[in-house]
């Protein structure tokens, strides 16, 4: 089966986000950008499915500015087969992204779409579920284990109290959680090879999708800061503090 993996270019997870002074957003000028970590896990899972002989072809797709090509090349270097970039210099919300992905899925007919559970910039955690709704497919969100068997897939999900397993009819949607796998690093030869893998460019208009945002960002602010408190010298003093705070009698 074909596996479709959407990937997003985001502020690198090691970089501390800085809110712009004018309150319009987070400063992304001259900072390191990388593939969303949950998407790396999605790419890795697709590659493992290919290595197991379950997946036959891995198509990665990104919606974003031209620079998202770098993110797609990273996925190709990890082991994806070809890439589609839907170019939009403006921000596309999860609903718009899901509509575009639904069109891509209709054209590509994948057996699975594996997505990161959320992007670490906007922390929306919506796209996979929305795509499931638009395609009328089952969804295995927050996956820590994916097992394809015949025309169904068993997905073990990280839920609040522990783990839950659901069986989905394929084609289906999977969104990744952290413990699903540990993504590989691309080797230098594979990075070189990725440069010649196919990368097709499209626009939202090619798919006839209106991606006009529904939400307006009024402002973006720094959260209220906590003040550092006091240090105590020993356990007795700590117990004293806990008593003052009413934690213990």
């Amino acid at each position, binding site marked *: 089966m074909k596996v479709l993996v959407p990937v997003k270019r985001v502020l690198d997870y090691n970089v501390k986000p800085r809110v712009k002074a004018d309150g319009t957003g987070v400063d992304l000028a001259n900072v390191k950008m990388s593939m969303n970590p949950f998407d790396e896990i999605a790419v890795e899972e697709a590659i493992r499915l290919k290595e197991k002989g379950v997946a036959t072809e891995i198509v990665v797709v990104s919606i974003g500015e031209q620079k998202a090509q770098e993110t797609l090349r990273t996925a190709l270097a990890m082991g994806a087969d070809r890439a589609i970039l839907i170019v939009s210099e403006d921000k596309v919300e999860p609903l718009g992204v899901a509509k575009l992905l639904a069109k891509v899925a209709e054209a590509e007919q994948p057996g699975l779409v594996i997505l990161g559970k959320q992007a670490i910039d906007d922390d929306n955690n*919506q796209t996979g579920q929305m795509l499931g709704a638009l395609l009328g497919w089952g969804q295995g969100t927050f996956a820590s284990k994916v097992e394809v068997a015949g025309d169904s897939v068993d997905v073990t999900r990280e839920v609040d109290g522990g783990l839950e397993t659901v069986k989905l009819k394929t084609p289906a949607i999977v969104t990744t959680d952290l413990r699903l796998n540990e993504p590989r690093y691309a080797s230098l030869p594979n990075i070189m090879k990725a440069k010649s893998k196919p990368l097709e460019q499209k626009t939202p208009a090619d798919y006839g999708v209106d991606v006009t945002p529904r939400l307006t960002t009024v402002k973006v602010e720094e959260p209220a800061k906590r003040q550092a408190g006091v240090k105590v010298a020993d356990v007795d003093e700590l117990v004293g503090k806990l008593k003052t705070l009413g934690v213990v009698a």
Partner: protein
Amino acid sequence: MSVLVWVEHDNASVKDATLAAVTAAGKLGEVVALVAGQGAQGAADAAAKIAGVSKVLLADDAAYGHALAENVAPLIAELMSGYDAFVAPATTTGKNIAPRVAALLDVMQVSEVLSVESADTFTRPIYAGNAIATVKSSDAKKVLTIRGTAFDKAAAEGGSASVETISGKGDTGLSSFVGAEIAKSERPELTSAKIIVSGGRALGSGEQFHALIDPLADKLGAAVGASRAAVDAGYAPNDYQVGQTGKIVAPEVYIAVGISGAIQHLAGMKDSKVIIAINKDEDAPIFQVADVGLVGDLFKIVPELTEKL
């Protein structure tokens, strides 16, 4: 404005996360609670007692027993013709279902709402809580998930809403429930605990994690949490994880033991009322947010603390 609220429940009783969602929904308008489940009369009766709930809808069907999004979302989307907003707590269940509902309604969801500024304007965390965005929705109907720690819990008793039984299309045949491994614990639930004792990678092993953290937590009647580093190292199960990628908590007291305070951990606990940190590294970032800090060897400090409490 009328608001439909997703009730998180175990068929017999209502989970705490629902109570904060009811409070948030109440800021928008009249609250109607939806209990979708199997043999869920008990949960519906409990929901009817929540202060501020004007009516309870009970959809009782085997297809809704495990809150499968594929079956529940169409039920909600259909009900939404009579409501202006859908509100769910931002639990794993709420996060699974709400975006599916939003897409069926062609609405852009607002996730993890921290405050309701007006009928169409909300604040929400982005970048793991390193920034707070105020967003205004232009959609005719709103779909929101609510961060439970940001709203007071509605009183679980005091209401007397009527319970109306409804039915939906039931099983879509897209998915089925296979099984669950839900950790059984005598301790309070992490997201609703008053006190949390969390352990980090400095505990060194799963054995030491449990030998040190568990007795302290039990002495305080606290829930046990863990940093992502401790979970990744296999010292604690993933459902203990506090942080951006785990649970968001805001207890009265948060005791961080051997946790350095990575951004992603702080994102999950920095709204706690009182933070207490025990760490051998006096420069650890956790001390920048801690109200009370103790620098030293946790292997000496924690047993002594447990003993002296």
